[in-house]
């Protein structure tokens, strides 16, 4: 039970990050490594603010804004300085590592003795008795749903349509009289806002900041997006963002199982990477099978016509 709860908790926190990566990877078609820096950026900001007595809830929007800034910088490097997409994001990721250390003041900052968004005087009043075990889970689910709905709503706006259009066909954005560079920067900003927000929640759930906690964030995010879309993307009942959330939870579950069956906690990143590789290969196979099925159906339909 404890394992399931922990998988759900972490899966949903990472889901918010994965929603951000869905914007860059799937909508903008931009390989964004900035997330390896912006995820711990949220963690660093939150732990420092909380340990200085700032209200924990306030750290979430502040983290989101910091993420916006990080994404904007990656965008500016790519669009205005004309640096290739992946390079621009790696430059930003590397720079953020030091920025995070500067913000936190040291490589490891625990906040065990402070209130956080999951555990404070307010939540103690609401949750009591048996609900205590799922208190954190419920609060995480609430934040995750809020962020998911915000993204869903945003993608239905005029600005959201431009974002979808720029990943699809840059020419059309110019044709609409809009600077495509600005749209890309906006997309990167929002995506990293989500990632940084997710990092803030993660730090508060784990109750510490660690300088290396961002390593592999991009891989986790991409794995979640790819699992989500290839397993659940086809179900018409679910929209894409929900598929991404499920993908994130499934991925967390896989990692947890791998660790449980004999692998050490220190193997975590290896498991993360190996699973990601497995997912890429398997999802390609699923896609191929899907196409073969369609072709088969078309084939039989033609035979019937004949």
């Amino acid at each position, binding site marked *: 039970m404890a394992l399931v709860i922990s998988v759900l908790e972490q899966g949903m926190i990472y889901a918010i990050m994965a929603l951000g990566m869905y914007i860059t990877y799937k909508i903008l078609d931009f390989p964004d490594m900035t997330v390896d820096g912006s995820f711990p950026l949220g963690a660093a900001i939150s732990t420092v603010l909380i340990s200085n007595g700032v209200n924990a809830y306030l750290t979430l929007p502040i983290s989101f804004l910091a993420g916006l800034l990080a994404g904007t910088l990656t965008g500016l490097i790519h669009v205005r300085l004309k640096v290739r997409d992946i390079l621009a994001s790696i430059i930003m990721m590397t720079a953020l590592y030091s920025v995070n250390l500067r913000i936190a003041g040291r490589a490891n900052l625990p906040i065990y003795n402070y209130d956080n968004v999951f555990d404070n005087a307010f939540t103690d009043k609401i949750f009591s008795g048996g609900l205590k075990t799922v208190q954190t889970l419920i609060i995480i689910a609430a934040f995750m749903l809020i962020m998911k709905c915000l993204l869903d709503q*945003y993608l*239905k*706006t*005029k*600005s*959201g*349509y*431009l974002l*979808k*259009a720029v990943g*699809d*066909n840059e*020419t*059309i*954005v*110019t*044709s*609409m*009289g*809009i*600077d*495509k560079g600005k749209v890309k920067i906006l997309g990167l900003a929002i995506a990293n806002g989500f990632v940084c927000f997710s990092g803030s929640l993660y730090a508060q759930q784990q109750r510490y900041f660690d300088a290396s906690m961002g390593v592999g964030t991009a891989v986790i995010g991409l794995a979640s997006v790819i699992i989500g879309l290839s397993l659940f993307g086809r179900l018409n009942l679910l929209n894409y963002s929900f598929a991404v959330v499920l993908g994130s939870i499934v991925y967390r579950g896989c990692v947890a199982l791998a660790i449980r069956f004999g692998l050490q906690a220190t193997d975590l990143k290896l498991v993360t990477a190996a699973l990601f590789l497995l997912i890429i290969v398997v999802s390609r196979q699923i896609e191929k099978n899907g196409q073969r099925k369609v072709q088969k159906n078309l084939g039989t339909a033609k035979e019937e016509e004949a």
Partner: protein
Amino acid sequence: MIELNHIHKYYNPGAVTQMCLFEDFSLKIEKGQFISIVGSNGSGKTSLLNIICGSIPVDQGSILIDGRDITGMKEYVRHQKIGRVYQDPSKGTCANMTILENMALADNKGKPYGLGRSVRRSRIDSYKEMLSGLNLGLEDKIHTRVGSLSGGQRQAVALLMATMTPIEMLILDEHTAALDPKTAEVIMELTEKIVREKKLTTMMVTHNLRYAVEYGDRLLMMHQGEAIIDASGDEKRALTVEDIMGTFNKISVECGN
């Protein structure tokens, strides 16, 4: 009115491969005029369109729309008042969005793209009406992804999207070249209908000499950065495909082709 004044354009300036495309090229386009442009590859047809749209800069000279100088204006800013349909049907639409979403996107051209809802229910009926004007049955498929439409259908939607909002100029860059002859005919008739209805100032580049003769009220033939034929009015009406073909062959011989 659109004016190109003394345009100079070189490719690879300063290099050994320097090539002069336009030297002191000037052109005046009256409001509401429908110009068709023909010419061999490399004659400067598409460059001319790109210069007007701001896709490539000029080295000297100025471009004016209704007396306003737009020479230094950025490409995307110019496009707020220019509609453009490309040769490649995938360039004028978004493949992963539905017809409805594409039209909603184009409907907002020239206005800020803010946080308001993109698809407004009240507009759906007028989108359907515009689509039914195409006679392709697309009005019943508004929730279909544009990527799953045929090239001709996509081009028809692209044409509609380019002309939905008030524009000062319509640019057609070989927009029927990638289509089969039958579909090309349909798109050409649609183009004529839309251009006449909205009285759009139009520049159409085409390799189809028959279209150039049949459609439009002015014909330009480009050759080495100059308009060697510029016919309008009665002169244009008297032109035949054979006339143009004759000139075409003559210049080709001169070039040693």
